[in-house]
């Protein structure tokens, strides 16, 4: 269980508040208008932004003050998920060991991960020689080897076309399921969310609501959501 206990982040005149729990292995969509604080919420969870007050707990353990790489968390960002000067294999390998000094067994793990995202033959390519969808899959393959129980997806596929994006959302789902991980995804596309989420966290003007089951959320949407989708 991921618990946010009275988390407050104050940035100049912007204030983010969150106080809720997310049960393990749920897939949660984070929805809300631009500038509402969705990415800020993920930054706090990822450890890139310190809380002003409140605690973040994972399985009862306080991780509020842990640096990003020590947290049980893997993140896929909106862009710059791959190092352009490294091959796909190296980019995935970083998920196992940041020094890239991998044992034969670990190298095998990397190859497996790339195969399971259908990039088995693309290991030696650099990002520039991969399509946008293939680049996303390399980033997802890294999630497989990182083996972190909590995965944050911060609009990772927003640069892709609709059909490719829904493929990637499916792949992210599968990978989450295989790793037994809890997933949080920020998205702008309600269709992706319907595809992906068990629960929805609605964020508006810095207030993060507790997650609601998707069906409940869609049946009784908040006014802000109605304005957001425009009907």
């Amino acid at each position, binding site marked *: 269980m991921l618990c946010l206990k009275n988390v407050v982040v104050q940035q100049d005149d912007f204030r983010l508040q969150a106080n809720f729990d997310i049960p393990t292995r749920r897939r949660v969509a984070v929805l809300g208008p631009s500038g509402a604080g969705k990415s800020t919420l993920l930054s706090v969870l990822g450890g890139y932004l310190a809380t002003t007050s409140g605690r973040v707990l994972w399985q009862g353990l306080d991780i509020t003050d842990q640096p*990003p790489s020590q947290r049980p968390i893997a993140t896929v960002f909106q862009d710059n998920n791959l190092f352009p000067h490294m091959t796909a294999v190296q980019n995935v390998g970083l998920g196992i060991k940041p020094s890239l000094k991998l044992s034969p067994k670990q190298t095998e793990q990397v190859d497996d991960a790339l195969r399971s995202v259908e990039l088995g033959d693309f290991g030696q390519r650099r990002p*520039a020689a991969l399509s946008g969808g293939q680049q996303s899959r390399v980033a997802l393959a890294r999630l497989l080897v990182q083996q972190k129980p909590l995965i944050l997806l911060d609009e990772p596929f927003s640069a892709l076309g609709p059909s490719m994006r829904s493929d990637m959302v499916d792949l992210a789902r599968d990978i989450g399921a295989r790793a037994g991980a809890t997933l949080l995804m920020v998205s702008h596309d309600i269709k992706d969310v319907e595809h992906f989420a068990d629960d929805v966290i609605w964020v508006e003007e810095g207030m993060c609501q507790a997650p609601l089951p998707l069906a409940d959320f869609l049946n009784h949407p908040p006014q802000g959501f109605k304005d957001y989708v425009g009907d």
Partner: protein
Amino acid sequence: MARRVLAINPWPGLIVAGLVTFFSLGTLLTVALRADSFGALDHFDWASVRFTVVQAFWSAVLSVGLAIPVARALARRSFWGRGALITLLGAPFILPVIVAILGLTAVFGRSGIVAYLLNLAGLEPISIYGFHGVLLAHVFFNLPLATRLLLHGWVSIPAEQFRLAGALNFTSQDTFHHIEWPMLRTLAPGILAIIFLICTTSFAVALTFGGGPKATTVELAIYQAFKFDFDIGKAALLAGIQFVICAIAAIASLWLHVPQAVMSGQDRIVQRFDTGRFRLKVLDAVWIVMASLFLIVPLLAIVMQGASSVMSLPEAVWTAALRSVLTAVTSAGLSLVFALALALAAIRWQWLEGVGMLSVAASPLVMGTGLFILVFPYVDPASIALAVTALVNAVMSLPFVLRSIGPAVRSSEQQFGLLSDSLGLVGWARLRLVILPRIRAPMGFSAGLAAALSMGDLGVVTLFARPDGATLPLQIYRLMGAYRMDQAMGAALLLLLLSLVLFYLFDRGGRAHAVS
């Protein structure tokens, strides 16, 4: 941002900052403590202060004044060799001063090409020594710099403005008035200031072409007080005056916002509609040909006159060359390490980059004087001449190395800092796997510049080195002093080749297999 993970230890940066501060300000303090009172200066010394300012002023005015028509011609004409000429305009950055001086002597000197032509016309040959010799050398170095900076100004004028001018049927005077003059008015003062600053620290040029009561810069006066009179108190006082001149010029150039020397994006030719007239074409052609000859002929003279003697140079020249290469490579390495340490620590403390720029206002001779005073009681200064030269050159190169590496480090961290943090890429792994591969190209380029700069340096080494411990530029200066001009030419060609090769190797090393 509430928290920024400290991925790389900032201590090396702070240590380097301390070192640089010591070299630029600490040496000055040392100097100040030893300085005589102003009464110790005779009218000869005050003349050197006046000369420094006057020659720097005219050097700047002439360089910029001549650069305007050359840059304009380059901006609006397309011709065979244009790209090569623009590349050549970058050459003075890595051209050793002593080489240029020999080349200019071969062209403008007593037995040079110009004297020969004047003689044919029945005119007296002009002397290259004194005020106009110093100006000539300074314009030779700074006309290309000013031209490049102005050319950049020209190509950054939006093409639409010239199209509009065409549609409105502007004459070329109208175009100048409404489009080009506003650009010049913003750029020219900064360029004037930076060239003025460069020329105030002129030492090697004044050492060779200047001298005497009418053409001695403060830097040269420091050297003479040191070397001939061994009057450390007076040298220190002059060093203090030099620092004040530099500091004023540096503050002025900061305040005027000096444009960056851009190495790319100058291949675009501005499409113009007002330049078709025959008279303008001839005018532009004349400027381009004159500027090209002014730059190329002295270098050609070195190559042609040096080629015959370069293989028969005495052994002392070759050992001096070896010393120079070692010093240059060490200096480039130090400069990179310093700049990298500062740039990394500057991610957290931005003011550290400012510290790295301190040496813009420092003069190598002032640093040299301060260091000499400090080490003199303990060690024989000659025994550490090369180490001091490498260090001082590294600190002097720091501003431009930092200016090219700093933004690259910042942009790497901006793009990949979060990702690196999330993957636990910290410390050496971060440096080795992320930052260094991403900054290879600017690193190679600036190390090449730093190496070439140190290779050609004829400054602090003159204070420290013994006759049997000379670097190649110093050796060339001695050959000139002994009127061994043929050997000096050969050694100058060797120095030119070594500087170019060093620059090429570093720059190439940075670009090979580079992936963006």
